[in-house]
């Protein structure tokens, strides 16, 4: 079987490629060039898009002994991930670009090209498992699990994906990389968003969207409490950086409750007003039964909450067993069926909005 290993230049994808080669696959390594200008993306050891990362990937491929190429997906990445990221923020939502990259780039543009070129599957270094039935499961390393950002994959995409790291912890992967003589063994993990070089998302968005001053209003009274330079700089559940000089009457901290692009307002209020009990999702991709009792996860690396999920008419509704704070539109809701061999992903949807029993927010 001929497989294409996506190699970011990090330790995970290097070990994944090496394991695929050991398993007897005919492996070809590919580094995806995602930046229009490789110098501008995050530099140093943290990213996946710099010239240094391309070199690290190439050296790993040399050590493993597989052919290696760089594929230029900068245009696709820009259109499908970066532009989408900006548009989502402009629309008052909080997107997850890694998830979008998996959905549109790694397991779409790259996978399609690989299949057409005669490869049978794509290998990645994601920490997740695909079981014998083709179902996606959480990684053996709960702290590193990436099933959340893979939950947007269709059964067909999953059927052509290989995740060799699913049964290992990150520590095991690093140790194995060192034993294999891979120089990336102790390269730091990538964090944050690869295309925002300095990690300043708000500043980056400001340079794309410009200043758009508007009001910060009190969710209960409608009173204008302050001004903001652009509603896109805020995320539901955010507490820091509101810049309000008047404290709440009860002295308790205030949080972003919602963002309304039409009126360009950011609505704030007490923590209790953040609580939601019903979450609505668009574009569901659901393989489980409906309705069904499952655990749902509402943000990357978030904890799960039991819920009753119903999927019908292109819409997902989750009634949460207990209130949850800070659910942001644009994030994914992912359903898991608890299982000792790794919780099984039943499906996902994009959160459109959420409500509390009291009907606020």
């Amino acid at each position, binding site marked *: 079987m001929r497989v294409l290993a996506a190699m970011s230049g990090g330790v995970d994808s290097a070990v994944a490629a090496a394991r695929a080669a050991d398993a007897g696959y005919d492996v070809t390594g590919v580094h995806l060039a995602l930046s229009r200008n490789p110098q501008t993306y995050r530099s140093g050891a943290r990213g996946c898009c710099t010239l240094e990362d391309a070199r690290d990937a190439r050296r790993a491929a040399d050590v493993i002994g597989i052919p290696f190429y760089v594929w230029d997906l900068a245009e696709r990445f820009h259109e*499908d991930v970066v532009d989408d990221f900006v548009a989502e923020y402009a629309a008052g939502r909080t997107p997850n670009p890694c998830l979008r990259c998996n959905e549109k780039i790694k397991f779409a*543009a790259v996978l399609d090209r690989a299949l057409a070129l005669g490869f049978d599957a794509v290998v990645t270094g994601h920490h997740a498992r695909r079981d014998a039935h083709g179902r996606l499961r959480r990684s053996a390393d709960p702290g590193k699990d990436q099933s959340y950002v893979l939950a947007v994959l269709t059964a067909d995409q999953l059927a052509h994906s290989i995740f060799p790291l699913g049964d290992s912890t990150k520590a095991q992967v690093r140790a194995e990389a060192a034993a294999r003589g891979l120089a990336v063994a102790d390269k730091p993990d990538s964090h944050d968003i690869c295309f925002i070089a300095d990690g300043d998302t708000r500043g980056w968005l400001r340079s794309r969207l410009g200043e758009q001053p508007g009001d910060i209003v009190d969710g209960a009274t409608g009173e204008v409490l302050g001004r903001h330079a652009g509603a896109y700089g805020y995320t539901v559940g955010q507490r820091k950086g509101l810049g309000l000089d008047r404290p709440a009457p009860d002295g308790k901290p205030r949080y972003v409750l919602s963002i309304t692009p039409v009126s360009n307002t950011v609505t704030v209020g007490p923590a209790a007003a953040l609580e939601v009990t019903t979450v609505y999702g668009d574009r569901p991709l659901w393989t489980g039964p409906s309705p069904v009792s499952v655990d749902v996860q509402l943000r990357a690396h978030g904890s799960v909450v039991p819920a009753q999920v119903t999927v019908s008419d292109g819409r997902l509704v989750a009634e949460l067993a207990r209130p949850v704070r800070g659910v942001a539109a644009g994030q994914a809701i992912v359903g898991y069926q608890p299982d000792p061999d790794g919780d099984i992903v039943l499906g996902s949807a994009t959160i459109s909005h959420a409500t509390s029993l009291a009907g606020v927010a």
Partner: protein
Amino acid sequence: MTYLDHAATTPILPEALEAYLAASGAVGNASSLHAAGRHARRRVEEAREQVAAALRARPSEVIFTAGGTESDNLAVKGVFWARRAADPARIRVVAGSVEHHAVLDAVGWLESHEGATVSWLPVDEVGRIAPDALAEVLDDDVALVTAMWANNEVGTVQPVAELAALAAARGVPYHADAVQAVGQLPVDFAGSGVAALTVSGHKLGGPVGVGALLLGRDIPCTPLLHGGGQERDVRSGTLDVPGIVAFATAVEISVKAQEAFACRVGALRDELIDRVRAAAPDAVLNGDPRDRLPGNAHFSFPGCEGDALLLLLDAAGIACSTGSACSAGVAQPSHVLLAMGADEDRARSSLRFTLGHTSTQADIDALVAALPGAIERARRAGLTKSTRR
């Protein structure tokens, strides 16, 4: 392996390798005054005479460098600086639009950092410069003209003698990058009328990292590298005796063999073109169909990406090239094809096969066996560009 990438680099000739190894055993800095130094110097001067004789230059016109890129930079920047220093009004560079990056980017640098103005000479659809286009832009403000002898991507041979004569009539030095030409075409420095000519070792059977700039005696040139002034005070650095000796050996042999090479390799190349066309009837041959390097075949395969074809052929043991410049391994659409009027799709769908002194018919057999399957797959991959959006 089927090696069809001789324009990138060609295997070293056994005689050149032998000369290299023999020379590298001896100690001696060619600038030293003692016997060992004199011996090294003698080897260098013999090599200089060998190169001069092979290319019909005078020994004093041969400046050894670290290869084609250095020679191009030295000619373009050095002649520009010297000519501008002599007359500040001379700030224009006239350059071919299909040059190798070693010229292209050196000219671009003069424009962005030295206040040069640039006239890029357009090419026609086969990549050829019309002499009229040069005549039109030649004026008193021109510091130098640089246009290559033969193109490294599509193989088109330029009308160098005509171009050089036009420049000479206006007293403007003409530089020709002849990296791909030496050993493939007759190259006569004195007869061609060019003022400066770039040669590189590893394209003609010599080692990598050594080459020469042939520079007419009366052509002013400001050095790039300052130091001991070893090469006519135009180029500094301790001379690489084994590299220079091996380079000169390869120049001599490849120039002597040029006619036979052009005949044998040219016939193989014609067969390659015919059989590729038979296997892929819609393949488009790029470059001048007649006046081209004997080892060069360059095609566009509609609906395919050159990158994808390269990967598939590589997997089948066939080495070729998309012929375009790489940054971090990412192929950009070739400036050569774009200058020839190709659109981005045609530029991206291109692939270069180049033959050399070790090529045989078996290479063509292997290519033609693998090509149809590769094209079919690459075409399918080309279609995926627009799906799943």
